[in-house]
């Protein structure tokens, strides 16, 4: 396989480890009980520390972390390309600043305004063994490309019997509410893509996560859609390791331990959920908060193990509740943990309306809505 041939030894070893973990998880999902949460968390931490050569950290925000990750991706593989609308001067959110100057306009370039063309072009580029990092300017504009993503990118390897693939394709796009985006600058379309076997959907919550997950996504031999929470671009600031590191895909992370209720979320919503957890703890409810990180394929084991511990589950996302990804999590966990559940799975999500203009505060799944749902679940 082309990617393995070019990988460094440590990368190859890590990839084998990922694959064996995947096998492990596959066996788990068929009923083999030989994993624990501790392994997953330790592995995650281990891969961050072990792969960072220099110990340095820099305090940067989310868009700088993404810029850093793109820099490393372009630097480490001469056959990688970053393209999209207006990426040349840095992009509308400045995530691609300086890349064109460093790597040249033949590797970091603007495309015309044609999302379907951009993604189709990326699929072709990836089919020839390149790493194509396409940017869709706002997730709301991804729909002209929906056909290419769902019908071509996701199914290429499958329908060619592994003769061809477009695994080098990564689509990065800012998603989610930003406070004033209204209908066409605030959508969260992750659920549509989670319905497509063959794709991976990855959503980071912070700069450290974003850099590691983006590098993992770019190097993953499958087409990945990387949703970046635009609200956190400037807002989320962290000490991010300076070197080249990846975080494992399809591994959720427990970011807050607790015993009464499990909360599952991703992206910008986790910050809101964390506030709700803090408020709930003042009332004596101890909440366990899990960041899914990868929505497709998602880490069922971690969530299942957590719900087996707490007996309650709450899922929260910005997208409208009906048909949102929370529904998939609710259904899967109910299947797996039915007898353990103490209360119905709660979903605190956006309302079933188009993303509104002035009504955004009513639409959003706020801290108070989550807190109400936590209390209702605990007192069921």
């Amino acid at each position, binding site marked *: 396989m082309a990617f393995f041939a070019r990988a460094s030894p440590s990368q190859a070893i890590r990839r084998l480890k990922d694959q064996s973990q995947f096998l492990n998880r596959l066996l788990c999902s068929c009923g083999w009980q030989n994993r624990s949460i501790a392994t997953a968390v330790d592995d995650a931490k281990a891969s961050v520390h072990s792969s960072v050569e220099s110990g340095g950290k820099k305090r940067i925000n989310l868009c700088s972390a993404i810029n850093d990750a793109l820099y490393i991706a372009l630097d480490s593989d001469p056959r990688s390309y970053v393209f999209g*609308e*207006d990426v040349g*001067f840095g992009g*509308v959110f400045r995530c691609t600043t300086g890349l064109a100057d460093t790597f040249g306009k033949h590797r970091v370039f*603007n495309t*015309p*305004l*044609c999302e*379907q*063309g951009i993604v189709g072009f990326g699929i072709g580029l990836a089919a020839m063994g390149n790493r194509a990092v396409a940017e869709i300017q706002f997730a*709301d*504009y991804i*729909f*002209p490309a929906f056909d290419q993503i769902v019908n071509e990118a996701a199914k290429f390897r499958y329908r060619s019997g592994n003769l061809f693939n477009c695994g080098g394709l990564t689509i990065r796009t800012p998603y989610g509410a930003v406070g*004033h*985006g*209204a*209908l*066409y*600058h605030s959508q969260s379309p992750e659920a549509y893509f989670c319905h497509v076997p063959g794709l991976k959907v990855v959503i980071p919550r912070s700069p450290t996560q974003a850099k590691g997950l983006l590098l993992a996504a770019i190097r993953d031999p499958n087409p990945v859609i990387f949703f970046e929470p635009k609200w956190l671009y400037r807002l989320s600031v962290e000490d991010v390791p300076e070197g080249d590191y990846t975080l494992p895909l399809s591994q959720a992370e427990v970011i807050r331990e607790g015993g009464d209720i499990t909360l599952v979320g991703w992206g910008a919503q986790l910050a809101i959920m964390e506030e709700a957890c803090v408020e709930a703890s003042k009332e004596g409810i101890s909440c366990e908060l899990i960041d899914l990180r990868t929505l497709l394929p998602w880490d069922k084991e971690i969530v299942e193990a957590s719900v087996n511990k707490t007996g309650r589950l709450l899922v929260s996302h910005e997208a409208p*509740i009906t048909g949102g990804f929370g529904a998939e999590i609710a259904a899967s966990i109910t299947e797996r943990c039915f007898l353990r559940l103490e209360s*119905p*799975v*709660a*979903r*605190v*999500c*956006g*309302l*079933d*309306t*188009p993303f*509104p*203009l*002035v*009504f955004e505060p*009513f*639409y959003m*799944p706020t801290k108070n*809505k989550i807190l*109400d*749902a936590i209390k*209702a*679940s605990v007192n069921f």
Partner: protein
Amino acid sequence: MGWPRSIVGALQRLNQRGLAERGDLFLSISREYTLQRSVPGERHGYILRSFGANAYRSEAQERKSSIPVEIPVPYQLHKLSEGPPQHTQTTQDELMKYYRDMALIRRMEITADILFKSQQIRGFCHLYDGQEAVAVGLVEALTDDDSIITAYRDHGLYLARGGTLFECFSELMGKRTGCSGGKGGSMHLYNVKKRFYGGWGIVGTSAPLGAGLSFAHKYLNKKSVAVAIYGDGAANQGQIYEAKNLAALWDLPLILLVENNHFGMGTAEWRASKQITFYDRVHYIPGLKIDGMDVFAVREAICYAKEHCMSGKGPIVVECDTYRYHGHSMSDPGSTYRTHDEIKGIRQERDPINHVRKLILKEGFATADDLKSMDKEIRKEVEEAAAKAKEAPQPAKDALFAHIYKNDAALQFHGFVR
């Protein structure tokens, strides 16, 4: 309408002799292509013009007070043997109306800029100043039976197509009194009565939608067209070509108006397009390129284009070479991809309002002081409307769930499940 041809013909001849009574009868006939005129002193062809009710004048009166106007920039034609005329007629009333309309749009956009910067308007705001001639010229050439559909830079067109300042500002601020009830915002201004199908957020949408509108117009048999407006950035979207093929295949009365302001957000047209002209993109659809900063050029071109569509020849592309002074939206300063000198130069050389102002002053229809006081009046009007809109209430809470579906009272909407 149902008038027998013989009667219509007789009345047309009466009209030409200037003897017909002005009135509803005449107005309804004048909506057809009735007026023929030629530029005095020149051998000129047959010019067809359609008048809306508000642009009607008897020919006798026009001959008395009309002045000739040059359209200096020559038209560029694609698959057309003859273009619109390079001269036209206008009157004092018309000139003052164009000046007022364009100055109103200009002042509205400047006020919207200030309101956005003071956070009264939130979200995204795409300003139209610099492109006023396209909106005013377009609306002048069309009737109330024609449909217009555009993209997100729709404030100017909304105002030109009969929208009020108060409703426009209210919508921008998300208030209940807005034209869309405060639910759409800057990019979603609509006017049902005047067939302004509005403001669409996704780039390129207007073309296939316009094709659908024009198909309906063809069925209505009312000598009306649909005008689909998009920009130079949108011209590379796939759906534009799909729409063009549909319209040409079925001979739809569709005018595709390209507002070429040379920048697709921050990307110049030569960086986005292999071919930087937009009127000759498709060989089977004729097109013309005009000076979009000249309101008379726009008017003549649209009249010509409408005639083209009405004679069953199918769609036509009209590319307007225009310019926007502001950036793409309020988040774009507009100076990172073009120089201040360029913007200043266009303001000095090609500003649409200045063009009309020069004509007015040259013909002595008004003095500079008159125009200044008109500007002041317009400014006052706009600021009053903005102030009134600021005081208006926000939409009621139940508006959040309203109009998702038709007859949606019985549907239950929920935010979270316990």
